[in-house]
């Protein structure tokens, strides 16, 4: 008897829930997750019948789930390779850049304040395990006058397939031949040392809780959690801290000549004030969406994202897209059938 009542209640609830919004499922990068979640939440407030459920499971996860077809679109900080694109057979994948961001070396060392200086080869050495202590001469050289403790460095990297990892390792490969030959650049590499955290969130969590640790996260994760992060030496030889201006500078060179499919890497960019570990991040949208309601929702969102949405970027420590890039992107929306 009780079970019958429960069944009726359950089906009524299910029916009322079914009567409401259409859900669009998306998954992917943790790098832009904070702004994406804010965007989807704000967009839902403006259009209550459009719910975009975004799960931040890492760029690798986004690419995988898009390929499997279990999500309607994906998100990644590493542009899909030709091989990955060839595996998606039902449609072509369009890359839509959303914002620019920077990957920062965040650390938790007592007595050392914000803005420690790191040069590229030093970072490579730390993550290779050849530089083991905070008091190493290489670190001392870049940070004269800073009291570095004689403690072991605890390295934290990503345990999942990550676009942020790709940007980080891409940069390290450009500045350290040893890194390039031993480890290479990809979303998931054979890390020589360190603990693995799941998502940008997991890495930030581990660094926050582990003394004398260093990890790499998107700028907003360090900033929102009031964690220390360092400045990195760019190709011009200056130690630059990541912020909206320095990240925008890094994209300046590519902005006008960005390729038609928007797949490009801007790490170690030239420019006096460029932040060397910057990147675009992309939404991976199919060029054919069968469900007309979903198609309308997605295109509406993209249009909004390229105009009003860009205004949210700076407040969340991301850099808005350069105008030439937006102009080209708006033309790409028309390709979605």
């Amino acid at each position, binding site marked *: 008897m009780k079970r019958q009542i429960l069944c009726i209640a359950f089906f009524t609830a299910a029916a009322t829930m079914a009567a409401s919004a259409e*859900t669009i499922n998306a998954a992917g990068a943790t790098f832009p997750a904070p702004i994406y979640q804010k965007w989807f939440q704000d967009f839902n407030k403006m259009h209550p019948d459009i719910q975009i459920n975004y799960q931040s499971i890492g760029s690798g996860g986004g690419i995988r789930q898009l390929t499997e077809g279990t999500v309607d679109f994906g998100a990644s900080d590493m542009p899909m390779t030709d091989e990955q694109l060839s595996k998606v057979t039902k449609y072509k994948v369009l890359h839509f850049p959303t914002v620019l961001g920077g990957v920062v070396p965040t650390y938790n060392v007592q007595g050392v304040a914000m803005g420690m200086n790191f040069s590229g080869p030093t970072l490579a050495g730390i993550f290779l395990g050849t530089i083991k202590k905070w008091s190493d001469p290489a670190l001392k050289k870049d940070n004269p006058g800073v009291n570095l403790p004689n403690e072991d460095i605890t390295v934290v990297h990503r345990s999942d397939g990550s676009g942020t990892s790709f940007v980080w390792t891409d940069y390290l490969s450009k500045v350290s031949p040893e890194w390039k030959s031993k480890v290479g650049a990809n979303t998931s590499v054979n890390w020589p040392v360190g603990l693995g955290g799941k998502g940008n969130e*997991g890495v930030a969590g581990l660094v926050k809780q582990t003394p004398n640790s260093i990890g790499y996260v998107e700028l907003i994760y360090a900033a929102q959690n009031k964690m220390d992060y360092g400045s990195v030496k760019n190709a011009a030889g200056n130690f630059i801290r990541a912020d909206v201006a320095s990240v925008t500078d890094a994209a300046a060179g590519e902005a006008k000549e960005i390729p038609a499919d928007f797949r490009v890497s801007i790490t170690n960019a030239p420019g006096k004030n460029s932040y060397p570990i910057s990147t675009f991040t992309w939404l991976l949208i199919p060029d054919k969406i069968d469900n007309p309601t979903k198609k309308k929702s997605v295109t509406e969102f993209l249009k909004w994202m390229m105009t009003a949405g860009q205004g949210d970027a700076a407040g969340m420590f991301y850099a808005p897209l350069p105008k030439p890039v937006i102009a080209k992107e708006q033309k790409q929306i028309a390709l979605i059938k």
Partner: protein
Amino acid sequence: MDRLKRRNILNNIMLTLTGICTVLTSSVLFLVLGFLAFNGWRSLNWDFFTKLPLSAGETGGGMANAIVGSGVLILIAAAIGIPMGFLGGIYLAEFGGKTFSMMVRYTADLLNGVPSIVIGIFAWTVIVVPMHHFSAWAGGFALSLMMIPIGLRATEQFLRAVPNSLREGSLALGASKTRTILSVIVPAAKQGILTGMILGVARIAGETAPLLFTSFNNQFWAAKLGEPSASLPVMIYTHAISPYDDWHRQAWAAGLVLLTLVLIANIASRWVLSRGASAQRG
């Protein structure tokens, strides 16, 4: 004399050690409850139970969709798992052939021992892949697989415990086997069977691993059962490994809610069982 003294000292030391072991192990439960209550109770407000989660870094919001999501998943699991366990248990207790019953019992034990992550893989291959969608169905199915062995064992055990005299009496009055089972034996065993089902539900309420790639997760309400669904255990997991203090606070609160429900179910079922046992003796 000396040897005896040594033996006595050893005796006292060892027995004290066992007492210490007992104190340590018995107190862990209270430590668990204590930490959860201390860290979580302040976050248990009306918002927690009624609002949706906010995006990362913002304070506030709640876990309403996770609570309802867990409820829905458990209902699906129970709708599949309870009948299967119940009817299968009836077969084993009342009808079964010897070798076949042994095989069924063995596979039920096997299923019970399968690690929950492997059950998740199975549910993924069977439901998520063909559907091309993460869904509450897949999550509920995975959980039902974990309920079946518990329900099966409980049903069989308590049906067998019903004295034969009841069966014989009913059959002697001309009732068919089916009617005997339905009207006489099952009601006599109902407390034990109910207990088993409650324990099964309590067990799956806290399972996380099988949900990670079946029901996945959802920031909003799941509009349909074919959509991904939030659930309390998965929310606790994602929030616990994040760096946001506000999310940590909510994870503690969710943990407190979940553990309280699980413990209430366990304690209630034991109480039901002990009452039933004394009633049967009378």
